[in-house]
């Protein structure tokens, strides 16, 4: 029996009872549509996280101080005051390092002359920060090395902060008060987006010396960013940085008082989380797919019973058992395939609807579509197997006599 005939016979059988086939397919349509829609939400979340991590700049290592202890109370990672400007100089000597950026960070109140005010993170850094974090400037300029040396009271506003404080007005050249101290706005960063804590749009940037001397009144750094020349060099740089800093801090390199993490570390942790999230959503949705599959099996069993005489005749005129088996399986796979195709389309529409109306980013990826078709075929074969086996095993004599 040719593939073409197998398909024609299946189409003929399935279209013999269009309403019943349609209703049965509906189960698969709903199942596949919900799986596609759910996975698209998971994938959307994942790609958003990847995008926002990558927007923090590529090939960047972050040095985080360890936790401070007050008596027996651990204050959490990043609270210890150990990183200083000297560490930056040490790190710059490592081969393959392009830039090292000291960061002093405080959350402070910022007030515009018109009275608008907000509370946000003020980042004190060197001008290299903008290159390392890949932040571009929309209006005005970034602060210079000289302004860092001179402890100048200048600030670059993130896009959201500029909007909150000044609305449509151009903030460049205006003065804002941070913690009661006047700063001159010299630039506004271009919008960058992202969902993580370090959204450039919600930050205010100033020279780190100004932060140390004027706002934080402390010589310690909160973070140090190290930008490597290329990705392959990062593990090596990380190793050397640990050794050099440990030596400088006079601590054991196996148990240093700081941590160095790469973006790959953050990324892999977060993508692991979203993968679990995606699998969970998909698993919940596949329950409806299984229900749909049982519907297919139910219909195929009924159909095989109804067509007992026909199957008997087919065998009498020379159909082999495996040909009958293939025919019934083709019918059930055809049903699940049709359901899958419609389901993918509807699932895609649902995910478009979700991202449009619920503002959740979604992404229907090619692998999930291919997977859906694969699952449909598997369901067709799995739930069609028993009815097909039943049909193939019919005795032609008894089947022909069946009333």
């Amino acid at each position, binding site marked *: *029996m*040719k593939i073409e005939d197998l398909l024609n016979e299946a189409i003929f059988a399935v279209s013999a009872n269009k309403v019943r086939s349609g209703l049965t397919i509906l189960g698969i349509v709903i199942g596949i549509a919900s799986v596609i829609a759910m996975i698209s939400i998971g994938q959307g979340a994942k790609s958003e996280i990847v995008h926002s991590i990558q927007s923090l700049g590529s090939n960047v290592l972050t040095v985080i101080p360890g936790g401070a202890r007050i008596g027996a109370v651990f204050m959490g990672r990043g609270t210890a005051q150990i990183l200083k400007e000297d560490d930056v100089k040490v790190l710059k000597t490592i081969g393959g390092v392009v830039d090292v950026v000291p960061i002093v960070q405080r959350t402070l109140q910022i007030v515009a002359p018109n009275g608008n005010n907000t509370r946000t993170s003020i980042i004190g850094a060197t001008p290299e920060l903008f290159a390392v974090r890949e932040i571009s400037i929309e209006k005005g300029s970034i602060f210079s090395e000289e302004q860092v040396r001179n402890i100048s009271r200048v600030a670059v506003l993130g896009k959201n902060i500029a909007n909150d404080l000044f609305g449509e007005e151009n903030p460049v050249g205006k003065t804002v008060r941070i913690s009661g101290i006047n700063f001159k706005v010299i630039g506004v960063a271009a919008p960058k987006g992202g969902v993580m804590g370090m959204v450039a749009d919600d930050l205010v940037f100033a020279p780190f010396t100004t932060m140390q001397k004027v706002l934080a009144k402390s010589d310690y750094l909160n973070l140090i960013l190290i930008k490597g020349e290329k990705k392959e060099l990062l593990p090596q740089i990380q190793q050397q940085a640990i050794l050099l800093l440990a030596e400088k801090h006079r601590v054991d390199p196996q148990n240093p008082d700081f941590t160095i993490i790469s973006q790959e570390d953050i990324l892999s942790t977060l993508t692991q989380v979203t993968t679990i999230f995606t699998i969970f959503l998909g698993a919940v949705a596949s329950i409806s797919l299984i229900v749909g599959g049982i519907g297919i099996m139910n219909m195929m069993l009924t159909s095989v019973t109804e067509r007992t005489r*026909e199957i008997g005749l087919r065998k009498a*005129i*020379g*159909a*082999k058992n*495996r*040909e009958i088996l293939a025919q019934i399986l083709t019918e059930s796979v055809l049903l699940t395939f049709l359901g899958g195709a419609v389901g993918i389309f509807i699932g895609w529409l649902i995910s478009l609807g979700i991202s449009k109306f619920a503002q959740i980013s979604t992404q229907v990826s090619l692998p999930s579509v291919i997977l859906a078709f694969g699952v449909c075929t598997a369901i067709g074969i799995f739930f069609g197997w028993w009815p097909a086996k039943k049909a193939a095993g019919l005795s032609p004599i008894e089947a*022909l006599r069946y009333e």
Partner: protein
Amino acid sequence: MIDCKNINKVYKNEVETWALRGVSFSIDEGEFVAIIGPSGSGKSTLMHILGCLDTPTSGQYFLEGREISKLSEDELAEIRKKKVGFVFQMYNLLPRATVFKNVELPLIYEGLPKKEREERVKAALRNSAFPDEFWFYLSNQLSGGMQQRVAIARALVNNPKLILADEPTGNLDSKTGDVVLKTLIDLNKRGHTLIIVTHELYIARYAKRIIALRDGQIVEDAPREKAKSLKLIKE
């Protein structure tokens, strides 16, 4: 062409039922044989065995020299496909399919190319005297006599040596029954071996040879002119 040697068929349910006991006969190519007998005489069982739908419990059945009583299901299907054409009392057509598709059905399992199939379907429909204008009607739109002629065309389409008809006129009135019978007789004249299983004696009267069964045994095997079974019931 057909050679049966001491065929027994036993059905084992709660009790053993001997459907056929020691049946032996042979049929040459081109013969027209009527197998007659009352219901329960074993004629249907015999037809199933002759048509390779079933195998005997013991004994041997040679079809064109090939012993088939020990063949597997798939091998039997292959023989049915190539050598046997069936005509059933209930026609057994696919109701929602056209006449053409119904006749084409055996060729689908043969895997023939489309063009050759069409040629053979047309030839079979013409040989069974089926009118051209109804070729693309759905089979359930046709009268019983017409449906049975579609079934005959379907039995013919593979050019089988052997045509087995099981009560082919059983569901038809005598007039249409005669037309169907005439079609079958024409096929026999063209060289197909024809075996009709029936309990209607008027049909048997057209056959050249009568095999009469009773309680699973052959009680008479004779040319029509000498067959006592026909005369007995006639009187």
